[in-house]
């Protein structure tokens, strides 16, 4: 899979268009894993979607690029992909919900969880605004929530002390919540 290697390089070099190309590849992997997860899922054993998407990404990268070592790069991209996937889906879902009265009937056992697609869309916009004032805080939030990373992991990736990460995250979270409730 030369393709993935190339895409990762372009992403690393700051080429944002590479993201659009890499996401479909993650999807394919994701679908396979997701099906497996759903099958194994049992009551009381909650699904961890964040972990799942990471797994998908990880698998894809490992398959194509076994010697891929830059952890910071990896996690950063992983969080970015996650955010992109979720926002895309939320948008699609939102659009569909508004567009069609004849929503697809789902069996009682399979109701779609999370009936508020706007929330993530609004969060995405708020993050963009935060990025405009303070890009680093926006990245930290992305890693924390979309990447599912701990403060320590973020500290390691971003090469800043963990307590700084915590401090910056705290105010960023408050700021985002304020923006979202406005």
């Amino acid at each position, binding site marked *: 899979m030369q393709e993935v290697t190339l895409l990762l390089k372009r992403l690393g070099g700051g080429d944002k268009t590479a993201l659009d190309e890499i996401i479909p590849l993650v999807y394919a992997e994701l679908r396979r894993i997701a*099906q497996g997860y759903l099958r194994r899922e049992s009551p009381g054993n909650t699904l961890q*979607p964040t972990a799942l998407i990471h797994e998908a990404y990880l698998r894809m990268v490992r398959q194509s690029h076994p010697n891929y070592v830059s952890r910071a790069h990896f996690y950063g991209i992983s969080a970015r992909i996650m955010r992109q996937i979720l926002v895309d889906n939320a948008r699609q879902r939102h659009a569909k919900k508004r567009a069609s009265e004849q929503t697809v009937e*789902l*069996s009682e056992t399979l109701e779609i969880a999370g009936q508020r697609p706007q929330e993530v869309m609004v*969060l995405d916009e708020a993050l963009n605004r935060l990025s405009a004032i303070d890009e680093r805080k926006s990245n930290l939030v992305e890693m924390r929530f979309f990447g599912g990373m701990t403060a320590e992991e973020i500290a390691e990736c971003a090469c800043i002390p963990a307590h700084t990460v915590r401090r910056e995250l705290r*105010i960023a*979270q*408050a700021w985002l919540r*304020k923006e979202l409730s406005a």
Partner: protein
Amino acid sequence: MNPELESLFEQAAGLAATEREQFLAEHCSDPDLRREVELLLAHDRGAETFLQRAVSEEASSTLQILVFAPGQRLGPYRVLSVIGRGGMGLVYLAERADGKFEQRVAIKVLQSDVDLPLLSNRAQQECRILASLQHPNIAHVLDAGVSHDGLPYFVMEYVDGLPLDRYSERHHLSLRDRLRLLLPLCDALHLAHQKLIVHRDLKPDNILVTEQGVPKLLDFGIAKVLGEVPVSPQNTATRILTPEYASPEQARGEPVTTATDIYSLGGVLYRLLTGSAPHQTKDKSPMEMVRAISEEEVRRPSELRRELAGDIDSILLKALHTDPQQRYRSVDQFAADLESWLEGKPVLAVPPSLGYRARKFGRRHRVVLATVSAVALALVVAAVVSIREGIRANRETAVAEAVNDFLQNDLLAQAGSSSQSGPDTKPDPDLKVRTALDRAAQQIEGKFAKQPEVEASIRDTIGWTYLDLGLYPEARKQLARALELRRRALGEDNPKTLETISRLGRVAYLQGKDVEAEVLEKQALEGQRRVQGPENPGTLNSTSSLASVYQSEGKYAQAEALHAQILEIERRVFGPEHPSTVITMGNLANDYQYEAKYAQAEVLEKQALEIMKRIFGPEGPRTLHVMEQLTWAYESEGKYAEAETLQIRILEIERRVLGPEHPDSLHSMAALAAIEGDQGKYAQAEVLETQTLQIQRRVLGPEHPDTLVTMGSLAAFYGEQGKYDQADSLQNQTLEIQRRVLSPENPATAETVYNIGCLAARRGHKDRAITLLTQSVDHGLSPYVALGMDNDADLASLHGDPRFVALVAHAKQVAEAKQKAAATQAPIRH
């Protein structure tokens, strides 16, 4: 972000909420900045959780949407939506993407932990066979393939309907309608079986009922195709696709046959009628599940819903038999029984007579006793001599004990009528053992004045030997002396003293003195449980004896509870093939039979018999006992010829090995008479029974329970030949004795009253009959008799009488309450 804002926020956030205002007043003079800080502080609490939840909720939705992937293509089909999720994978609603046909289909995509290769050739071949299976009640398999990401899928006719159980609930279907719903399914299954296609995964979710009420079987044979996919050995549990409905052979991973579908269909019906699946698999590990499915009996449906008692119980238990051989031979046969039931005809699962008549020519089904000794002439003499020599030479008790041990274990035990007939040894036909024992008993007198313990042991052994020979008064005498000596020498709580108490209890039981026996056994058991614990072999022996007494007293629930408890301990402590374990199996089966749980009884008997023939030999007394129980089972099933052949064989062996007057031989004579009666050979039966009665009166005494049973049977044979006066007089004689010697509410007494009632009915004395029958129902009549009342030919003259209808209903109620009590009592605590 403004560094000043950040700094103020950080410091204020570190303070308690009450101190923040003062802090800001002191450190922030800019009102805009201050408002901004205050706003952020207000949104600080819970911000993290808020964001986390927003993201993860979206992630969940995304994930599910990814999995449905509407618009995704599978071969020539386009996925429309997800319609279900099963153990094997997701089911999608789809349509032809190429517009060739306008047809909606259901696509089942299978998933597996391992990366799947392309469907194997064999699997593809299987799919072609499935595609050829066409029936209005089978969802047709149209196609199969592999998705681009390697997942195999099946395309099936789309059925718009509800799962069978939910359909029945939503439409509040009656019991009969639920049964009717199963008939077309049987027909479909029969067609498949003719083509040698087995469904393998029948369950309510795989049967959909359309709006028009047409049931359709889904997923036919797919389990097999899935079986072609390699499954890793660690994943053996995945072999059980739907454990609640899996057959025992499936659970064990054995080859699957059409009998498997019959089992699972029985399971579906069970669920439909009782509301629960035949096996509860919740919270069980795969190993526990396999064990439960392959070993545990299914709970009687009537225990869950009373109105199922009788034929439905029998039909379901036959379909759900753990042994595939014992199930319906074909799904057609199963359907025929359902139809018969719906039409009110007799069903196959319950043979026509059900031994109702057989019961009247009744017999007493003795509990098999775990007796251990008996002695041959030479050995007794040698033993007694050697004890004397031994005691003389060595004064120490320890040595005397050793000598006695030798006597008990090495000499006497070898000669016992029970242990004599191991697989390799021939029973000693010399029955003059008694003479030897009598002599030995006399010799003991005065010889061991200074060795009371030794004397007690010898007397105990000799007493036990008498007991084994059926010489109860002699046994009692020796055991009573032994008890006296042990009490004095060892004290009341000594294990040996307690053992002798229990043995005396057993003699009392064998002499038909149930009340005394119960007192003694309870006394022994109480001490043994306290001193030796519940799992000690001595304690188990007494528990077993008490259970026998309960059975004799008609306290079947208590007997069953104790036997089940013993069996559990013995299987665990001694192992499943230990003699004691196997004997207990036979005894528990006996309880089941009394409680009319025939299916359970027969399984257990056959299991026990198979082991017994091996460990006790084909002519061992215990083997014979269980063989006799089996004849009873045959009788209950109306297989009289088989019962007769078996019973004649037993009698022949017993007469040869034990002698013609041994209680067991007498017992077999009575049993044979009963079977002759079953077949209408009343005159012949009368002769045999008269003969039996004569010997029993002499050997056992005129008031012994066995003698009384024989009197009842003989009366029945008189009745059948129209000799009503003789019958009536004999029954009343029996009743008089029973009222005097048996415990109150004893089922045997109740049955005599019932039988006198039957005679009255036959003679057309309706009022008297109703009075007597009611009396019997209210005073201890066993469920076994009570549940068969409406089918009792003797009571034909009462049919149509509203009093009789009410009485039958009342009897059922009483009987079911008893069975229910038995069910709740079964898991007894120590």
